[in-house]
């Protein structure tokens, strides 16, 4: 019981921290886009890279929706492995994205953070959804 008392709030906090920093990047993405362009870049090149980053951020928000749905509906709230995975993924994502903002990393590094820290937990969440609602297994 005490384990769940610690893991569930920790998972919620890291999820929300990751969400907050993704929303922040929506406003501060110009530095990152400029970092991955050459010194003399044209308007079209800037818009192309900017659009790519916006697409990545939007897909991240969509995956957040999936994870939050799974978390709040109780499908994965009490599942230890999914909690641990989600905790680790969103914690590393928050740290990496804060470096992304402060150190002005290039915009293509966002795809790596997206792949490891947004796609994998959301995929596991979807698998749990299918297992609980489709295959009628117990959530934990």
């Amino acid at each position, binding site marked *: 019981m005490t*384990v769940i008392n610690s893991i569930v709030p920790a998972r919620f906090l890291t999820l929300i921290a990751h969400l907050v920093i993704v929303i922040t990047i929506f406003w501060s993405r110009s530095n990152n886009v400029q970092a991955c362009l050459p010194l003399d870049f044209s308007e079209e090149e800037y818009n192309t890279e900017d659009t790519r980053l916006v697409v990545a951020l939007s897909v991240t928000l969509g995956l957040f929706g999936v994870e939050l749905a799974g978390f709040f509906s109780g499908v994965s709230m009490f599942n230890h492995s999914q909690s641990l995975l989600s905790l680790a993924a969103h914690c590393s994502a928050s740290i990496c994205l804060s470096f992304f903002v402060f150190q002005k990393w290039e915009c293509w590094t966002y795809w790596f953070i997206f792949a490891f820290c947004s796609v994998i937990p959301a995929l596991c969440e979807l698998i749990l959804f299918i297992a609980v609602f489709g295959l009628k297994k117990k959530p934990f």
Partner: protein
Amino acid sequence: MAFYEVYSHPALIRYKTSVCTKATLFFVIVLCLTYIPPLLVAYRSQGFWLKRSTYEEQPHIRFQYQILLTGATSTTGDYVAWSTYHNFNHLLGSNLRIPSVSVQEEDLNQDGKFDRLSLQLELPLKPEEQIYSIQLLLTFSYQLFRMSTVVMQTLVYVQHSSSVPGSQLFVSGDLRLYQRIPLPHRGLHTAYNVSVIDGTSPFASAYDLVKIIQAYQERNLTTYLSCPSPLWTVGRASDAPFRINAEIHYPLEIISYRPGFWETIKFAWIQYVSVLLIFLWVFHRIQTFVFQNQVLPTVPIHQVKEHRP
């Protein structure tokens, strides 16, 4: 009587599992997250691999007692000259003036290395001759021993010209090393142990200052005189010689070199381990929490000595 803790020792609990379990996967991920991020942190914060370092040494400098002196005696190209090379003096003809030279090399702090050179040169002139410019070239041998052993022949070139004829030139400065590339950390470096002027050559081109300085500046290690402008005193008496007074100090030199393999590894290891300790502590706490509270299923084995009844 009061009850207090007299002694304590940790009791070890081992957690066992088979290879294809979630606990093994967790362990592998934690292993990667413990040992790889400190390397990234240490590398990305710059300065992981030491590329260049410095050390200080006072070099062994000895004056080689080879001098080449040229002075312009008019504004139309007349000159007088002298050197310690017989072939050059033969080529001068009537422009040769033989000065009296007095040189002292002193070791001021008695450490076996010379610290200062004092050179006084008196150039006799005809009463109607005046000196308008002086070009002086002195040769030295330069040796370093602490890291790589460097033995080379170097020169100091002093030049001053004035529109007013002078009676004395006073130069005081330090003999400094100029490196284009850092020195290696060990080994013998005698590529420049060649005399800067070829004294055996009978041709005038061997004593052409332009060619000498041009060849000298091709080297990666050179010396130069670092000093404020030479002092030109005017008003020579008609029977007095032209005096050149040079004081050259041999100071402690800060030399840059490329560190060797073990020095680089030592500093990289220090940086890596100091960050690794933090990550080890953090993941130790996380692993204790996960395995003690059975977040991932494992088999705990307590080491308890059974008391026989």
